[in-house]
Every structure is written in structure tokens, then in C-alpha cells.
């Protein structure tokens, strides 16, 4: 909890006093997901495990991203937290209170839907006020909060418009404002930026970070876009086929993926299989010496190396010779596909300047930075 304070304080640019007040407001509610499972029947009648024993602890105030391919369970988990799906087993706790038995309108949790789900017959103000009117709040207070949240998402000028009169980005901000107005303990976002074009999406990512810092609310954000996940998340939870694969900061996930799935889902990687004996790796046609001490040295291993950890022509530790199969120039870098003498493919990313020195078919020496080699389970 203290660590969270420090992280939040050090990352925002508004007064720490305001953050402190926000924290008091929220009552520091951690979200605990304990061994949650859910199955349902697909159209053919087969049983599908949407969530399989998922356990995850989300500290209050954090921006957590649920990441994974379609059908991996991330949306099911989000909807379960919101209350739109009933879980088959396990608990959901918020600030120590069990919430999985409560209906959606009794949970201190609000959702921003992928389709925005704004009420088409109401203006922005009315949409936002709707949620507040469901609580016992004085009319003046309602107005104050609506104005406050409109300013937060920068929609004050469009307050009287109806959803059909606004652009996608504006609708998205309205949906966000509507959910935030109730000052929920957790804000759930279901791929809210999916419908926006690239430029607008990048702009909204900045906006979301800003709003997150300003409010201090816990954000749980679902996406299948790994770049978005890394840009937005304090921590990322990677899902596949209903199971939680790994949880960690973007840096941890990227440099130390725990499985081949995570390694390949986030960024590119080359997976090498072989044996380590006395800090020397041999396998897949490569030989890498001077491995770090923490690399296990009993029998077969799976190593993961990011393309930018390799270099060609000259570098720190040699892996052996490889043949160039494909060269792709992307403007600011060079992506090469190489093959070891045992036929294994290696992906390498270097500076663009090497373009003139490399040709398809050449045999070159491959180098690696041993500090960036990860080990997979």
C-alpha cells in the first residue's frame, strides 16, 4: 500500500495533497480476484472454460491492463467484476467485502463499454446525471459533480449534445465521464479505444493516463493490443484460454516472459532450446558462453531472446555463424531473419545503418547481450 502511494505520487504532476484526499475518498479498496472460474456452453453444446482458476490482486489506484487474444477470458473477467456475468466458483473482494454476490447496481464499480452505450435519447449532461440520480444526492451536488467530471474529460462545451451529434472520440469521453461521475472504487474499461483510428487512439491513451492520475481510481483496462497494454498499464495481466499466464510491469513482462506464449504475444522473440552446462548454452545451432549465473544449469532449457538483444557483425558475446534469409528495412531499424546451421530461425533487430553491409545469403556472425536473455518455464 505504501509502495503504491509512492508510485502514484512520483508519477503524477498534480499536488500530492489532492491525491491524498482522493485516497481517503476511495477508502483504499484493493480488488481481489480469488480462484475465479466460469464455464458456459458454446452454440454446439460443448463446454467452454472462459475463466479457469484465475487469481489476481489489484492494488487500489493502479492502472491494470488485462491483455490477451480474443476468447482468452479477459472480457469475461471484466464483466464478472461488473456483475453482468455470474462466476461459477471463487470470490471477488473489494476492500475486504465480497462483491460477487451483489447485483451490478449495488457494486461500487462502473464500466465504460466498448460501444460506449450512451443513452441515445439523453444529452451528455443527462447521461452523466443519470448515474448520480440513482444515489441519494442533492440536486446542487449532482450539478457540481457533473460539471467537475465534464471538465476532467474536457467536454464542457458539448454538454448539451446528444450522442448522435458527437464524434466517436467525444462519445468515448462522455462514456468515461458518466462512469467516473459516481466516483467508483474501480473503473472497468472494455476495449474502449478499439473503435478509434490510430491517431485518436494515441491521443486518448494520453488522456486516460492523465485522468487516471487526476482521479486516483483503480482502472482495469481490457485490450488485445499489446502496444496499448504496455503504454497504459502500471501492471499487465496476460491471459490465454481462460488462464492467467503472467502478471507484471510492462518491463517485467517484456524482458522476462514466463512462457513461450507471453514471449510471443508481447513483442517478437526468438526461442532457443538446448542444454546449459557450466554457463554455456548449446542448442538450435548456436553456442552462447558467459551466461549469467542465475541461469539454471541442469539439463534442457528454453531461452528467450528479443530481437534487439542480438547484434550482427560485431558485439559482446558470439553465438556462432548464421545465414541471412530475409532483410526488412523499416526506416528507423533493420529487421533480419536469419537461420542457424541447424535450420532454426532467429529474429534480429539492428540499426538501419547495417543495410549496406548485409545481403541475403551472406553468412555473418551473430552476437548477443547475455544480460537480456530470458529463461522460459
Amino acid at each position, binding site marked *: 500500500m505504501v509502495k503504491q502511494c509512492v508510485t502514484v505520487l512520483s508519477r503524477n504532476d498534480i499536488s500530492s495533497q489532492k491525491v491524498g484526499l482522493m485516497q481517503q475518498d476511495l477508502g483504499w479498496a484493493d480488488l481481489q480476484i480469488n480462484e475465479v472460474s466460469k464455464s458456459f456452453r*458454446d452454440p454446439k453444446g460443448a463446454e467452454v472454460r472462459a475463466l479457469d482458476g484465475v487469481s489476481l490482486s489489484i492494488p487500489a489506484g493502479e492502472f491494470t491492463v488485462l491483455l490477451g487474444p*480474443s476468447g482468452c477470458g479477459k*472480457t469475461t473477467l471484466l464483466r464478472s467484476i461488473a456483475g453482468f456475468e455470474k462466476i461459477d466458483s471463487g470470490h471477488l473482494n473489494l476492500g475486504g467485502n465480497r462483491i460477487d454476490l451483489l447485483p451490478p447496481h449495488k457494486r461500487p464499480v462502473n464500466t465504460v463499454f466498448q460501444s460506449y452505450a450512451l443513452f441515445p435519447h439523453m444529452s451528455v449532461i443527462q447521461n452523466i446525471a443519470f448515474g448520480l440520480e440513482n444515489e441519494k444526492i442533492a440536486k446542487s451536488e449532482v450539478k457540481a459533480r457533473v460539471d467537475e467530471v465534464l471538465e476532467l474529460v474536457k467536454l464542457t462545451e458539448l454538454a448539451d449534445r446528444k450522442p448522435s451529434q458527437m464524434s466517436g472520440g467525444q462519445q468515448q469521453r462522455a462514456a468515461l465521464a458518466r462512469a467516473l461521475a459516481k466516483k467508483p472504487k474501480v473503473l472497468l474499461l472494455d476495449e474502449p479505444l478499439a473503435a478509434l483510428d490510430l491517431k485518436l487512439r494515441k491521443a486518448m491513451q494520453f488522456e486516460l493516463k492523465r485522468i487516471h492520475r487526476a482521479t486516483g481510481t483503480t482502472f482495469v483496462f481490457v485490450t488485445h493490443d499489446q502496444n496499448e497494454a504496455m503504454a497504459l498499464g502500471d501492471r499487465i495481466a496476460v491471459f490465454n484460454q481462460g488462464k492467467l499466464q503472467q502478471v507484471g510491469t510492462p518491463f517485467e513482462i517484456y524482458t522476462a516472459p514466463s512462457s513461450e506464449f507471453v514471449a510471443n504475444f508481447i513483442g517478437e522473440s526468438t526461442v532457443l532450446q538446448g542444454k546449459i552446462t557450466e554457463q554455456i548454452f548449446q542448442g538450435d545451432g548456436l553456442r552462447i558462453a558467459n551466461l549469467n549465473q542465475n541461469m539454471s544449469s541442469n539439463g534442457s532449457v528454453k531461452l528467450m531472446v528479443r530481437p534487439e538483444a542480438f547484434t550482427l557483425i560485431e558485439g559482446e558475446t558470439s553465438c556462432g555463424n548464421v545465414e541471412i534469409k530475409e532483410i526488412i528495412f523499416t526506416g528507423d531499424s533493420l529487421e533480419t531473419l536469419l537461420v542457424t546451421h541447424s535450420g532454426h530461425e532467429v529474429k534480429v533487430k539492428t540499426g538501419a545503418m547495417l543495410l549496406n553491409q548485409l545481403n541475403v545469403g551472406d553468412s555473418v556472425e551473430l552476437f548477443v547481450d547475455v544480460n537480456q536473455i530470458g529463461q522460459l518455464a
Partner: protein
Amino acid sequence: MKPRSTTEKEPGIYGPGLVSLPAYITGILLVGLPLIVVIVFSFLQRGEFGSGVIHKFTLDAYRTVFYETDLMGNQSLNFSFLKIILRSILLAFTVTIICLIVGIPTAIWIALQKKTTQRILIVLVTIPFWINVLARTYAWMLLLADGGLFNQFGAPVLLYTSWATFIGLTYAFLPFMVLPIYASAEKLDKNILEAAFDLGASGWRVLIRIVIPMIRFGIFAGIAIVFIPALGAYVQPSLLGGNKSMLIGSLINDQFGESRNWPVGSALAVLLLAMTGVILLATRRRKLEFV
């Protein structure tokens, strides 16, 4: 794949369950109950003096429908009833075929027009739908009567013949055939037709091998929407056919009216229901979905 319950669940919760209680009672029970009661009545005994029923189980009604006993006590197949049933089926069948022959091209023709023309044409096809069937049937009474327009142009007097019933039914049901087929045809990707012509197919080939198979669901729907009501039609046979050759609809009405044999009338209705069920299965309506 979105993790949702499998059936196309209607959007969440619209309101409190209590609101639907009177609705369930009126809307659903009273839709289902009449059918159950009809089936039950068909197994009951004819009431005293013919009115209503006596609550005693018997198969008399069905026996009357299928068999007749002559003065000697010999049972034989009741041809008069069976004739009526077969005649109704034949009539409904013919009406459906003609509606198909005329309706399919019409629906396709409309679907291939420009958007605005399509809307106008569909309105034109829909208007008769809103006009009372009595008025539409009366129109043919005028045309087919002795001294009416058709007669004056040399045609024989068709009123009060089976031909009149046939024409009246076809006229009434043609829009019912056109609309669902149009709904299918309108969704057709015109590029597919263009591609077919581009590959050298003749008009007939495109029509028969491409267009019709692609709109077959609309055609099935149209067949169901025409055949079933045509089977049980009452107004047209009554006004145009003159009761010379009876059909199921008039027969049922008679059993509840003059002949005062409710169980038999119910039995006939059950038969009609059974035939309807067969047609629905044949045209593959899985969920009785209409919209």
C-alpha cells in the same frame, strides 16, 4: 468469440419482472390455452342439442370425420369429409404454386430497382395488405359476376365457382408471397449476379442456378405464409365459391354453427393444426421466428 450465453439473449433487463406478469397471463397463456382446449374438445362428446360439449372422453369426433356408418351399420371411409380435406389441400397447393410463379419474379424485379423505386414499389405491394379482405374479395365479386366486367368481355360467369375461390385466394395472398421473397432478394449482393453474367451465363441460368437458390429462405417463408392460411380460408370460399364445393374453413364454421357438432369442428381444427405443423417443419422454420 464473445463470452455470452449461447442463445441470442435479448439485451439485458428492461425492467422489473412484475410488469410482465399480466403480460404473461394474457399474452402467453391465452395464446397457448385456446390451442390446448381445441385439442381437448376434439376428444369430448357432443353436447345436448348440439351446443357445446359434454366432458366425457370419446373418439366419436374423429370417427365421424374419417368414417361414416350407413343404415346397415357398415362402416366405410367418410368420403365426403375426406373429399373436402383433399380439395382444400389441392386448392391451397395450387394457390401457392401460382403465387410462387408470379411472386418470385415480381420480388426479384423489385429488388433489382433503384433504392427509391424499390421503396415505392414495396409500398404499392403493401397497400392491398392493409385493405380489408372483405373489400378485396368483393372486388372479385364485382368482376366475376353475371354482367360484371369479365362477363361483359366474353368470359363465362365465374362467380360462385371454384375458379372464383381460386382467383380470390391467389389475389389475397400474392403480397404475402412477394414480401418475404423480396426481403431475401434485397439482401442479395448484385455483384454476384454481375460476376455470373461476366462469366458468360445466360439469363435463365443465372436466375435458376444463382438467384433462386440464394433467396430460398425467403421462398420457404413465402410458401408457409401462403399455404397455411390458404388451407384454413373461410371468407373467399364463402363469398366467391358460393358454398357449392366446401372447404375445411367453411366446414369448421358449419360445425360450430348450423351443424352444431363442436367436437367434430375441433377435430377438423386439430387436423388443420397438424397439417400446419407439417408445413412449418417442411419449410424449416426452426423457432417460429417471424421478424
